[in-house]
């Protein structure tokens, strides 16, 4: 991954150590800007997250430059922890992160292996280690994303096999940093408890990134984007209804930010289809793509009392 010399503004000296490194050229060479702009454009909100990612990207770029200048270039620790409420984009950002690390040459393949406790922890003695190692082997050269990582550690059961998986993970995170980047993700409070009871993880993770909840406006933007991507359009009435929906939905249990919006959109599509089926006359293209206020207002969120509503 080190194509020394190609991006230097100053010709390479005989010792193969250039006197100066052009960070701009390095930036352009890795195409990292493109990925970061994409990230800014496609992900709504998440400003602190984006700032941290830019910081990390700059740091890695500088680390590359340092390497070219012949300074110490021990592979930086890249393991990360993503904490935040459900539906705040942890998985999506992890995917982008894999791409960024790949562009910068800190991940050879840049693929993301997404696992949960079930994939790592076995069901009987001697089952866990091979299972965990198998996953680790698959993730080599890329990023291992462990969703809801705190489930690995179950303090209430001291015979739990999760501890075994944790030990193997820690060992690989320490010894094979150049082969594998681990991203742990989960809800903020539970991750904090997890880190408190597993100090090994905390010290091996370089970047803790907290994902804030989306504001109402951001959630609306996300819905518009979802609709746009699926070639649907929201009528003005639908937009207003959606605004009310967001406010109401937020007060109900199991609110999952962007994921709730996606579910709402999916159900609105179903209702729109039903509505269109009941029209006797021929329907036009605009009918097919437009979600009306009634499609959204039919949601249970509007009719049921907040306290009694289930997950819908």
């Amino acid at each position: 991954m080190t194509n020394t010399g190609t991006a230097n503004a100053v010709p390479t000296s005989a010792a193969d150590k250039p006197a100066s490194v052009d960070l701009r050229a390095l930036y352009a060479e890795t195409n990292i800007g493109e990925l970061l702009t994409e990230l800014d454009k496609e992900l709504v909100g998440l400003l602190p997250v984006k700032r941290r990612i830019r910081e990390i990207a700059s740091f890695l770029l500088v680390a590359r430059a340092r390497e070219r200048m012949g300074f110490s270039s021990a592979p930086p620790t890249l393991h990360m922890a993503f904490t935040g409420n459900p539906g705040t984009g942890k998985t999506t950002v992890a995917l982008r992160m894999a791409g960024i690390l790949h562009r910068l040459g800190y991940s050879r393949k840049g693929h993301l292996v997404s696992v949960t406790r079930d994939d790592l922890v076995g069901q009987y003695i001697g089952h866990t280690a091979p299972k965990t190692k198998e996953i680790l082997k698959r993730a080599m050269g890329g990023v291992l994303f462990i969703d809801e990582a705190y489930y690995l550690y179950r303090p209430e059961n001291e015979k739990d096999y999760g501890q075994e998986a944790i030990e193997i993970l820690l060992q690989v995170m320490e010894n094979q940093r150049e082969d594998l980047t681990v991203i742990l993700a989960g809800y903020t409070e539970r991750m904090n408890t997890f880190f408190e009871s597993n100090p090994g993880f905390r010290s091996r993770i370089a970047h803790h990134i907290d994902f804030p909840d989306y504001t109402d406006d951001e959630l609306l933007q996300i819905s518009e984007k979802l609709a746009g991507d699926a070639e649907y359009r929201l009528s003005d009435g639908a937009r207003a209804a959606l605004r009310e929906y967001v406010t109401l939905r937020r007060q109900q249990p199991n609110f999952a930010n962007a994921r709730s919006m996606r579910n709402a959109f999916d159900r609105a599509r179903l209702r729109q289809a039903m509505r269109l089926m009941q029209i006797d006359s021929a329907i036009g293209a605009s009918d097919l793509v437009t979600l009306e206020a009634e499609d959204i207002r039919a949601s249970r969120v509007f009719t049921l009392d907040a306290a009694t509503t289930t997950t819908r």
Partner: protein
Amino acid sequence: MRLTQGTFSFLPDLTDEQIRAQVQYALDQNWALGIEFTDDPHPRNTYWEMWGAPMFDLRDAAGVMQELQACRAANPGHYIRINAFDATRSFETVRLSFIVQRPAVEPGFRLQRTEDRGRMIRYTLHPYATDKPAGSRYPVQE
């Protein structure tokens, strides 16, 4: 006598860097990789002991190299080979197989002639190593 089985066996032993490159090539072709070891070098000994299950769904050679190191540590003084299996329809076979570890001293084979009816001669290849029980056939260098 140097055992020549599989690909690259007439070349000098591959370095770990070269092995990694070959493994990466195989992975890039979507072949599944298996590690096998034996201390019976007879050419008709087709099925060697498997080191763990074959590895599917890998993207990077690091995982295979890690298993190879583990196999080497557990089986010094054994032959170890890497097989790359192509599951594509109509291939469904091993596409690449090469030795990645061999004992320091390879005593070779004895050609055994057995006289049969008439003046017929039957030939048998007999590895000197297999005179000793399995597990102690090759001296292990510390």
